[in-house]
């Protein structure tokens, strides 16, 4: 009986010692956790090459040429939609509006919505859409471009976009909202159809801002 008690005490003390040590080690790691880099990471000798979103030429709602780099070094929130979309787009844009409201006075953040319906969403249509969404186009840009390049771009943002005659209005696409850092690297995303996912995403965006603008 006595020896049983002794060994129990030993186990308890070992356990508590290890937990204290673990706590100490964790406490010493002052470095805040960084957001992951999404996509392929290539290591080339001492160089690490991260996946970056290409800086292709697009056209904005004012018929002007637009590239991500023309925004300056900003953190970007991006999505893919079309103005006559009867399925998920209104819900995703509603969540983009939540993000807009949260960061509209924060110059470090810019927003881009890419149309995947180049045939119907002319620059005039995009401009009218932005106007009726009641957002500032200097903060939130609506862009179009060559169909192939926008579909390829969606791929680079890890958003699936396909033409599907069986889908509503001919397009099937994901409602992801993507977070891109100052160097066009994808650092996070949320499901724009799910308000809770977007609420959690606020923290992700804030974390990146802290990381990028220390």
């Amino acid at each position, binding site marked *: 009986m006595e020896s049983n008690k002794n060994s129990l005490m030993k186990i308890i003390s070992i356990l508590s010692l290890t937990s204290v040590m673990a706590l100490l080690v964790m406490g010493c790691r002052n470095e805040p956790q960084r957001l992951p880099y999404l996509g392929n990471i290539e290591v080339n000798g001492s160089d690490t090459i991260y996946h970056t979103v290409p800086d292709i030429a697009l056209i904005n709602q004012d018929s002007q040429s637009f590239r991500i780099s023309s925004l300056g070094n900003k953190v970007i929130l991006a999505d893919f939609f079309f103005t006559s979309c009867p399925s998920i787009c209104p819900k995703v844009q509603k969540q983009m509006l939540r993000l807009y409201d949260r960061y509209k006075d924060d110059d470090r953040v810019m927003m881009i919505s890419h149309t995947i319906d180049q045939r119907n969403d002319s620059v005039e249509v995009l401009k*009218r*859409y932005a106007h009726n*969404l009641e*957002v500032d186009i200097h903060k939130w840009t609506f862009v179009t471009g060559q169909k192939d390049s926008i579909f390829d771009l969606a791929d680079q943002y890890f958003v699936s976009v396909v033409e599907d005659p069986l889908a509503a209005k001919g397009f099937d696409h994901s409602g992801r909202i993507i977070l891109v850092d100052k160097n066009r690297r994808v650092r996070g995303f949320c499901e724009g159809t799910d308000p809770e996912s977007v609420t959690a995403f606020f923290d992700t965006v804030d974390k990146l801002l802290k990381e990028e603008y220390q």
Partner: protein
Amino acid sequence: MPQISSLILLLLAGSLSFIGCERHPYSQGEIIYKYNCANCHMDDGSGLAKLIPSLDKSRLTLSEPAKLVCLIRNGLPVNKLTGQEMPPNTILNEVELTNLINYLGSKYALKPQTVQAPEVKKMLAGCQTH
């Protein structure tokens, strides 16, 4: 001891009946709303800025079931100011429409009017197509 257990039972029964009352009276209509309308008008009926109208602000239409039936069935053509259209809904039958209208009325109308399926059938017959 028996007193305590009967008290617990009583409390349990009370809370259950309370939960039962929390349920919306037109839960069928709510489900139909969710699958046919909420993509654009949102789960809470708030719409999307000026693009998609909020249901809260269209109380007049919602309080007139006959207009509402035709609006849902035929939709609205493209609005020149916003570029948005309301797509027609041709899949809901009169019973489903009845459930939907009673749900919308109870939630948004200033003076909710309850309708029955035979009335809705007549209303549908009276819709003008555009």
